[in-house]
């Protein structure tokens, strides 16, 4: 394959400007890269990686990588992430060769499919190893694509999160929902691609071009910092009179911002205003003032200002922020498609939790987990995956094993297994085997941990404060206090403390207990969730069999679990009989 490295062409400039590479992985990823190629909006090396030769053939990217040519024989991964991963591992060298020597590597992938979910983490790993800054721009599948794809996407997300410096995650549902229902599916996907391409461009310009008020990658990550957050992105460009206001209006119109409504809950908001040399202070002030109406006072606004001669007399406003999936869904559930969304919320919430559970499990401290493997099949492999210093191969295999909690299938069971696993960690393996039997079969078992959860949660900061003598613990305690025990900070803290662990041996015990408690909180959260969902479903079961007379075929009027179409006297009689 011949390689045209566009970013290299202006020899002199390349030393000053950071070299950017954009890799599109899988179908969605290559679509995005295509769009960028066509629009020529970013000065970067564009790489398209796919297992399917046909897609590669259509791709307009200058560099194309056929993943796993020998293994796949040019056929797509067929929605199987394992195949995608294998394929990417086969083409490791080729990938490394294409993306080497760049300062920033963007990886764009649509999660949920085979190549996107399977290969993207591998490529991210390789990119990380080249020493570049890795930014992943990913999309979660539409809810109509089914649960399986969602599960795969969540799994891939987990892996990507560990490898990328920043993760920009888009919720396709959000984009799809706001497109007119009559628009075809192609348009829905197209729109999504376009938005992602725009965001890629915006991020690369924001972080690379010098500005009057500079925004760096640190600002970007803090704007995106949100546990299980989905990216809110808006971009608007306008010229002529009132261009500042117009640009802001356009940016707010972005479906991901929902005319500013979604901004009400964000904690951090990155605003970048760029314009040609004619940009005036008054305009910038106007934009910010207007934006202030949509944003609550406590929101941290990360403001950036750039003058870019390329923009001419146009003004561009970029808004980037993130919102937790739950909050996002809370907004969306008002809409009736919530039938589609509800199961999602159920699925994703428990998935969100395990992130910190798996990452930190310190390999050095826990005894060899062999006997436990059956008890907590999903949990056990975690110790194998300390995110640092291991060869990619091993890493991927074990990660594949851990196959993050089994979204969708048998929740109660999963949570029970995890519960069983939690006490097992420190006790000796025999006890574990004895204990294993009981919780696995008792359906109502989740209850005790629920009650226990409250004190556990409360005690986290305490445990963190006790060993304040060691440096690690101090850091831990500080971070916990700052973060008020929020998931995101906890996760970060735990992850960091694991890497430091070898140096600060005395802190180990505390760390483990901390880790465990955190884990059990998470688990009990899952248990609560599961319990709640069963309770919900029970209510609806009892209905619909009663005699409704002439209202048989009409929509039932259900109030507090009673079908009011059934004669009042009949219901009263039933109640009396009970």
């Amino acid at each position, binding site marked *: 394959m011949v390689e045209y490295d566009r970013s290299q062409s202006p020899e002199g400039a390349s030393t000053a400007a950071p070299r950017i590479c954009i890799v599109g992985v899988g179908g969605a990823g290559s679509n995005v890269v295509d769009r960028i190629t066509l629009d020529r909006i970013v000065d970067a090396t564009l790489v398209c990686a796919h297992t399917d030769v046909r897609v590669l053939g259509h791709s307009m990217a200058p560099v194309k990588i056929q993943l796993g040519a020998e293994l796949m024989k040019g056929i797509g991964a067929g929605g199987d992430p394992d195949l995608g991963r294998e394929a990417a591992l086969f083409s490791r060298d080729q990938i490394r060769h294409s993306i080497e020597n760049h300062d920033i590597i963007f990886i764009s992938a649509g999660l949920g499919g085979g190549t996107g979910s399977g290969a993207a983490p591998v490529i991210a790993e390789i990119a990380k190893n080249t020493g570049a800054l890795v930014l992943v721009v990913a999309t979660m599948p539409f809810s109509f694509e089914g649960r399986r794809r969602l599960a795969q996407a969540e799994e891939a997300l987990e892996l990507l999160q560990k490898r990328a410096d920043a993760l920009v995650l888009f919720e396709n549902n959000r984009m799809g929902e706001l497109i007119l229902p*009559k628009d075809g599916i192609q348009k829905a996907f197209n729109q999504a691609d376009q938005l992602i391409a725009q965001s890629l461009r915006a991020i690369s310009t924001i972080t690379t071009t010098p500005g009057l008020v500079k925004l760096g990658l640190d600002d970007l990550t803090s704007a995106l910092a949100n546990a299980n957050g989905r990216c809110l992105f808006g971009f608007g460009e306008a010229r002529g009179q009132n261009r500042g206001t117009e640009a802001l209006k356009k940016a707010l119109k972005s479906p991901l911002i929902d005319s500013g409504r979604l901004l009400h809950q964000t904690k951090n908001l990155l605003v970048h205003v760029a314009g040609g040399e004619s940009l005036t202070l008054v305009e910038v002030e106007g934009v910010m003032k207007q934006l202030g109406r949509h944003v609550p006072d406590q929101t941290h606004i990360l403001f950036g200002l750039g003058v870019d001669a390329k923009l001419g007399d146009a003004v561009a406003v970029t808004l980037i922020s993130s919102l937790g999936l739950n909050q996002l869904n809370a907004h969306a559930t008002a809409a009736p*498609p919530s039938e589609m969304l509800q199961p999602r919320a159920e699925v994703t919430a428990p998935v969100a939790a395990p992130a910190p559970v798996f990452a930190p499990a310190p390999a050095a401290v826990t005894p060899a987990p062999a006997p436990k493997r059956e008890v907590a099949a999903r949990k056990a492999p975690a110790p194998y995956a300390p995110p640092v210093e291991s060869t990619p191969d091993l890493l991927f295999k074990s990660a594949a094993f851990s196959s993050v909690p089994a979204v969708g299938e048998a929740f109660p069971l999963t949570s029970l297994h995890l519960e069983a696993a939690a006490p097992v960690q420190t006790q000796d393996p025999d006890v574990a085997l004895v204990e294993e039997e009981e919780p696995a079969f008792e359906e109502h078992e989740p209850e005790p941990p629920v009650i226990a959860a409250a004190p556990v949660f409360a005690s986290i900061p305490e445990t963190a404060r006790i060993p304040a003598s060691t440096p690690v613990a101090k850091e831990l305690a500080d971070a916990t206090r700052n973060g008020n025990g929020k998931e995101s900070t906890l996760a970060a803290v735990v992850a960091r403390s694991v890497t430091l662990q070898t140096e600060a041996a005395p802190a180990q015990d505390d760390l483990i207990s901390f880790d465990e408690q955190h884990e059990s909180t998470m688990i009990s959260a899952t248990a609560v969730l599961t319990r709640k969902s069963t309770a919900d479903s029970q209510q609806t079961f009892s209905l619909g069999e009663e005699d409704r007379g002439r209202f048989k075929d009409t929509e039932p*009027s259900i109030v507090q679990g009673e079908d009011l179409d059934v*004669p*009042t006297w009949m219901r009263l009689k039933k109640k009396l009989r009970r």
Partner: protein
Amino acid sequence: MAKSTIYAGLEIGTHKICVVVGEAKRDGAIKILGVGQAPSRGVRKGEIVDFEKVQTCVNDALVRAEDRSDVMIRNVFLGVTGAHIESLNNRGRHRLPDEQTEIGEDDVEEAKEIARSVSIPQSNVFLHSVTRQYIVDGQEAVRQPIGREGRVLEADYHIIHGVRGRVQNAIRCVREIPLEVEDVVFNPVAAAQVVLTREAKMQGALMIDFGAGTCDYVLYEDGMITASGCVPLGGDHITNDVSMALQIPNGRAERLKVEEGSVLYEEVPEGEMLSIEDDTGLILGEIERAFLNEVMNLRTKEILIQVRVRVEDHLGRLGAGIYLTGGVSMMKGVDVVAREVFGIKVTRAGSAPVSGITATFENPQYSAPIGLIRYAQILDSEKPFLSPLKRLGRRMQELLSSITL
């Protein structure tokens, strides 16, 4: 504009379909020119389930109304209801720019826009958004904010919305007749215009339009519409209960309910029997009157309790009490039960007197369709610059764009 305008209101009820033709004079008076009515088929709980049947019935009613009023009806105001219709109050807050102290027209528009941009479910459509009041710097009940000094202007809106598809279906059904739908009005909002006097609205009143399919309500406080909605239970449910309790067909149960039924059972002497006849006058059997009344009472009470649950928060502030209208409000003893349920004064009311066919407005069954005429008139007087034609055009554009989906 002509001296008077003729409007037609169409209400597709669960029990009857009714077309009222009225003349609205410039001075605000209304004259009812004619009423056409036909029994309704194919409507359940206020919503159309069978297009063809409904269309035949509407045609019947239409022809009668045209006959009596001697008016060709082309456009109608359509009253809709249904369980899917919900309401909420929303406030839009607009802070004036720093250098400006006087509230201008733009500021009012801005505040309105913010108030109206409330997030309703994607599939829903706005039926009404009524300005309740403006609030300037915390001072409530401002009717006309333009020209006032202030820093913060808030617009308080009552928003009624329903599921787009269901509203659209009603419109489509009528358009196929063919009739043009000038505007869609939530039934109780229309009925309240003629049932409640300005005074009642100022004192605070709850109007309950107790129909066959649904029980719609509107609540006014300090002259402002505060709550509205629809309980998908009505006279049909009473009939159904009777029919199932007595094991008699629905038609007969309906007649029994209307002719003999009452919701007061405590005063009925024990052992008083009622004979049930079939169409030929043959006696089918006997039932105890107290039993019939008790069945009806239980259901009526339950329906009213459902209404109460929805307006509970505002009940303390109703000086004018409750106005019962709609077909079921003619049932014996319903006011007593309502008083029991709500604990405040209950008035049974039809439309306020208008000129024309007097028998019409006295009948509470016609509150909603007459209200449609009044509503149309109010609408026109509020928007004098927008001719009905233009409004129609805009409406149709909206419709067309959504129908071609």
